[in-house]
């Protein structure tokens, strides 16, 4: 019995499989300016919920900038700003728990999809998301006229009772892929960026193809500083966070 191979029970992702799209966030560069939050909300028709609701934990942003406190004055320190959005896990805990296949894994884009129109609102996925990045439409939020003029037609407007989350701006990915396909080529690095990465003034958010070893994001994700959130859970997230000082990185 040479080299016995232990069969994999949960078989569909393999160690080291990067996925197709990925993101790298340099926490040394992130200034916590919230431009990504605003950009995401503008791109994805995210509603605003008002003071009381947002204070009660019902803010709808798909992306939040976290920070914690350490120590006490005067030795107090704020942990680096950390934008947290859907990590597009390769082995996503949110997916198998949905009874109606409303959140599934795209085999093509290797992304974690939320199919709004399929969602019946059990909210199990949100419970099972270790990153707490899923938000639920607790109500139909009021967007008085003429604010709806701003709706992005590429993104479905969600109504009450539906779960939603960051999509890596899949509408932009599709558009870029469609464009590339019509020109008979592959999407090149830097051609597509989600709204957050596009807006980020510090260029802390880098987005691109993970399956292209030459892309900026896959180089960054292989950097020694790169860590994944809650890596120990084995969710295989596609967002890499670069910790510590950014000396010598990037050009």
């Amino acid at each position: 019995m040479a080299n016995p191979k232990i069969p994999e029970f949960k078989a569909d992702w393999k160690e080291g499989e990067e996925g197709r799209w990925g993101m790298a966030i340099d926490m040394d560069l992130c200034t916590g300016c919230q431009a990504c939050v605003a950009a995401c909300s503008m791109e994805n028709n995210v509603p605003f919920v008002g003071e009381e609701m947002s204070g009660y934990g019902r803010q709808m942003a798909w992306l939040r900038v976290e920070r914690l406190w350490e120590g006490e004055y005067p030795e107090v320190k704020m942990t680096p700003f950390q934008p947290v959005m859907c990590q597009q896990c390769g082995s996503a805990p949110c997916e198998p728990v949905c009874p109606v296949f409303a959140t599934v894994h795209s085999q093509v884009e290797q992304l974690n999809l939320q199919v709004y129109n399929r969602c019946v609102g059990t909210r199990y996925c949100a419970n099972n998301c270790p990153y707490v990045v899923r938000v639920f439409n607790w109500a139909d939020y009021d967007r008085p006229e003429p604010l709806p003029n701003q709706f992005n037609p590429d993104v479905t407007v969600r109504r009450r009772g539906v779960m939603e989350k960051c999509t890596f701006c899949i509408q932009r990915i599709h558009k870029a892929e469609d464009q590339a396909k019509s020109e008979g080529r592959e999407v090149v690095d830097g051609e597509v960026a989600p709204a957050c990465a596009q807006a980020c003034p510090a260029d802390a958010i880098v987005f691109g193809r993970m399956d292209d070893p030459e892309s900026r994001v896959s180089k960054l994700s292989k950097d020694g500083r790169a860590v994944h959130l809650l890596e120990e859970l084995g969710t295989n997230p596609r967002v890499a966070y670069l910790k510590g000082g950014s000396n010598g990185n990037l050009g």
Partner: protein
Amino acid sequence: MTDKNLLLAIFEDIDPAAHAVDALRGLGIHDEQVTVISGTPITEAMLGRKHQWSNVTRFSLGGAIIGFASGCFLAFATPNMYPIIVGGQPLVPVPPSIVVLFEMTMLVMLISTFLGVFLDSRYPSYTPKEYVPEISDGRIALLLDCPGDMEATITKAMTEAGAESVKRAEAQVI
């Protein structure tokens, strides 16, 4: 008067009823011609009658098989009809499938057991039947399918065995 009559003999207790059953056998009435009706479950053995045939267990078994099969369909066939991968798990996950198989087996088995009672007992049936309400007060009734010419003999035998009353059974709406 026809050549066949239905007689209804009502007994107050088990022992006289058992005697009556014996007496009937002595008179040459087959067990199949006698129907015992009671308000409380009494076993065939108490009256010395032969075991009643019931198909309920077969229905249950059949239901369990159908249930298992439908569980198999749900657990193994439907994921392949529209393959959707979730959470990096295999398309047909083994442990959850066991749950599906178990629940479907149990569900269909119990439903068919229930329906088995209905089918075996010919429920529901609202056609008039030979019955007296006293039965549900604890009486035991023997419903005899007796040849017309033996009516008097049987009536007498029943009364001797301790029947409260013996009369022609008339189908009534119950």
